[in-house]
Structures are given as C-alpha cells and as structure tokens.
C-alpha cells in the first residue's frame, strides 16, 4: 500500500517536471499591458507571416504582469503603457534582469462624453474638478442640467496612471466615480450613459461616443506626436538587456515604416 502510494506520487511529480522542460526554440513570448496588446498582436501576426519559423505568443494581463513575467524570465518582452517604475527597475536589477525600453507607438488618451452632450472642450482644471468631485453637474460647464456620471479606469491600470499624472496631477479620484476594468468597458458605459464622462486610449474610441478637446486641442496624429495634446503618452516594450536575435528583429520590425503602418491601423499614432 505504502509503496504503491510512493510510486504514484513520484510519477505525478516526474510528469509535471518533464512537461516544463520541453519548450523554447524560435519562440518569442510577450506579455503585459492590455493597451499595447492590439499593437503587439497585429505586428506579431505580420512578423510571423514574413518569418514562418518564428512563433510569437502575445498575452495581456496588465503592465505589472508583464514586468513580473520579464523578471521571472517567463516572457522575452514586457509590454507596458507607462515607463517602468523605479521600484520595478530596482526589483528587476536585484533579480539580475536589466530592463531596456523600446518605444513602439504613441497614444493619446481621449476624453469621451455621450453623443447627446453639447460640451466641446474641457480644460485640464475642469477635468480635474469633475474627477475629484468638485464639479457635479454639466450645467456648471455650460452644458445641459444633468448630473455628471464620472467613469474612470481601475486605479492600477496603466491608462489610469497616465491620466492621473497628466490630468489630475496626482489628485484622488472621487469615491463616487465608477471604476471599470477596460478601455472598452469605459467607452460602452459612456455610450449608454447620457451624463457620462470617461477616458480611453485613442485606439478604443468609436462612433458611439464623442471626443472632446482638451485645452482646445483635439487629440489627433499631429497633436499627439508633437506633444501639444496634454494627455499623450508613449507605449513601450521592455526586454532584458539590449534586445538580441529574433526579439531584436521583431522590435525593429514594429519600429519600421511597415510596422508603424500596422500601429496606425490599430488606432494608435506612429512614432515619426
């Protein structure tokens, strides 16, 4: 009885170990930000079409997940919608990982409202007033008399971090704000909420909502590239040390004219 048990447990452990040994080859794994996900996916497909021997697998999970995957060496590339934090860099270094950043795309965070809303422009301080709960009704901004429904992203998403830094200067979002889990959820919530206001990456905005100007600047290609649009950011891919081999070829493909066309097709703004 005991011997049989031992053999069984041993067999179980052995089978688990052998599964993890097989892997690698011409495989690139990237993981991380859901904002970078569509860019990574589309460019990976194009790159694999041109290089049949290479297999790129792309996963989402969030910027923090990507960084952790890079640290644990379960991913070759960490996608991030924000620069890596000092804490993350020092944690990586202590694990012998040296994160190196590559900018792959530009993105603007659009402020969106319901289609029936007449507001055309908001200043950064008005946006801050709305999100911190000081401005509660659209009529205070010259719109119709209608309570403002503030829709925000989760406080730990990369999109929120950039919004929080650039639009709110680090101020706390009011507790009554709805916090949704994805860019898509924000856009669809705003489209079905007449008093709603939300924000999402440029690539996620559709015809169901209306984009307002920020400080009289419209988010578009030239204003994001030049940085005159206040809520613009860069999207990154991080590798361990300088990228080499197939990973380097993949990243330079994204940065090439051909790759940047794909970036634009995904609704983001190209690098140059």
């Amino acid at each position, binding site marked *: *009885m005991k011997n*049989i*048990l031992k053999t*069984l*447990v041993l067999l*179980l452990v052995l089978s688990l170990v052998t599964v993890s040994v097989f892997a690698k080859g011409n495989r690139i794994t990237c993981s991380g930000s*859901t904002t970078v996900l569509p860019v990574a996916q589309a460019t990976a497909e194009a790159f694999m079409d041109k290089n049949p021997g290479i297999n790129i697998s792309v996963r989402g*999970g*969030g*910027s*923090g*997940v990507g*960084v*952790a995957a890079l*640290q644990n060496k379960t991913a070759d590339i960490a996608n991030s919608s924000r620069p890596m*934090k000092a*804490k*993350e860099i020092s*944690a990586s270094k202590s694990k012998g990982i040296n994160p190196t950043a590559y900018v792959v795309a530009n993105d603007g965070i659009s402020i969106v409202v319901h289609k029936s809303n007449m507001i055309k422009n908001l200043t950064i301080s008005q946006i801050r007033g709305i999100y911190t709960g000081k401005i509660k009704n659209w009529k205070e901004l010259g719109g119709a008399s209608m*309570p403002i*429904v503030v829709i925000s992203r*989760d*406080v*730990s*998403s*990369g999109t*929120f*971090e950039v919004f*929080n830094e650039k639009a709110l200067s*680090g101020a*706390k979002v009011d*507790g*009554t*704000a*709805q*916090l*949704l*889990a994805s860019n898509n*959820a924000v856009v*669809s*919530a705003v489209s*079905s*909420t007449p*008093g*709603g206001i939300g924000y999402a990456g440029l690539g996620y905005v559709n015809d169901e909502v209306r984009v307002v100007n920020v400080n009289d600047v419209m988010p578009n290609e030239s204003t994001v590239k030049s940085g005159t649009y206040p809520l613009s950011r860069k999207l990154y891919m991080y590798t361990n040390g300088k990228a080499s081999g197939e990973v380097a070829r993949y990243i330079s493909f994204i940065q090439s004219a051909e790759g940047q066309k794909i970036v634009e097709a995904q609704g983001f703004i190209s690098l140059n």
Partner: protein
Amino acid sequence: MKNTSEKLFQAITYTASLFTIIVLLAIIYSLFKEGLPFFRAVSLKEFLFSGAWYPTHENPEFGAKTLIAGSLFVTFGALLIGVPLGLGSAIYISEIAGNRMKEVAKPVVELLAGIPSVVYGLFGMAFLAPLVRQYFHLDTGLNVFTASIILGVMIVPIIASMSEDALSNVPKSIREASLALGATKIESIFRAILPAAKSGIIGSILLGFGRAVGETMVVLMVAGGSAQIPKSIFASARPMTSTIAAEMGETVIGDLHYQSLFALAILLFLLTFFSNLITELVFLKRSSR
C-alpha cells in the same frame, strides 16, 4: 490478484483525495504568506474601518470599508431575490408539481447553474443595466440593484436544488400525519414540512451566500465599481472580489498594494470558509439525528 487491484484502486482514490487537501492547504498558505505582511504596514483597524481606498496614490490609503460594504450590499441584495425564488421553486418541485412536471422543472432549474458567470455578466451589462437605467430614470444602470438581480438569479439553482433535496428527505410519515390531522396542503407545507427541512434550507441559503459573496465576474461587469458605501440600492458599488480582479494585473508584485489585495482575499476566504463551515455543521446535525 484481486487483493492487489483492490489496493491499487484504494491508493488511487486516496491520492486523489489527498491532492485536493494539498491544494487547499497550498492556497491557504499562499494567501496568508502574501497577505499577512500587509498588516505590518497597515493596522487591521485602519484596513477594516477606514473608507479610503487609494492604493496607487502617492500616499496610498488602504481602507477597505467601502469594499466590504460593496460586497455585503450586493450579496444581501442577491439573497433577497434568490431566496424567495429558490425556495419557491423548491417547494413547487417537491410538494406541488406532478411527477412529469417535476422531471422537467428540476433539470431546468439546475441548468441555470451551468451558465458561465461571464455570460450572466454580459447579459447584465448589455441588456439589464440599460433597462434598469431607463425604467427607473437613473444616471447609470451599473449599480447594486442590477448586480443583485443577476447574482440573485445565479444562486437560485443552488438554493432550489439543495432545498428541494431537504424537502424530499422529509419522511413521508410527517406529511401523512399532518394531512391526516386535517391540515390543508398549504398548512402542512408551512407548519410541518418546512420546519422539518429547516436545517437543509438554512444550509442552502448559507451556500448561496458563499457563492454570491465570492462571485467576481458579474460584479466586475455590472456593479459599477465606485469605492463608496452605497447610499441607495441604485448607487454603484465595488465589491472586494472585483477590486482584486481588476487591480491584481497591474500591481508591482510584492509591494504593499499587491499585499493589500491578498489581505482582501484573506477576508473573503474567511467569510466563505465560515459560511461553508456553518453549512457543514448544520448538515452534520441533521444527518446525526
């Protein structure tokens, strides 16, 4: 020969049951290992009774009061809807329906349990929320009310199927005695059969509670996600489960925010663990009687 195969079979089943226990212990261990260090930085009192949840702010605050309130609001809302519906269908299936109806109704109710929660969430987000917003003239349809309805429907099969089992297990003699004494059908259901099946019914409600408090996808999609103590049933809320699910992806592994999510998970685990434990105890009491 027969002896060996029998022993082998014993060993296999033994390993299988051992495996679940090992997994359970591993989960508990990792929860507490990652979550307990959190309380070195933030006091339990602040965690439980402060309402400000700003985990990524420059001066982060980890007050989970609003999140706990969010969980309890949607859970009790779900029970308000799920218990009458579940118990009602249990009574109908067990006591009133004919045999043929019974054969159809029971599997159909149990079919509800097989729908993935994300499908419930989609239904709530795309169909029910806009309906609730229009019908009640609200600013938003993603609120406690909508989430409670969806969660309530989700726990109906749990409550219905377990209560039905409890009702069917009531000895025939009790039914017959009650009717023989001249009680009507309704009287014997409420005065004799329900009291006899009491422990099983309470057990099913507690299990429904555990299911509702731990449900993640639906509340993430439908409850709205405002970290506030809901002022009405039409306000948005942010239960603990959706906070963990939404924030875990972007935290820096090992930092205070990461640990705070594990602390929330410990709280959730204790809630469901004790509701399940009470269920077990209630059932044990019944079976030993």
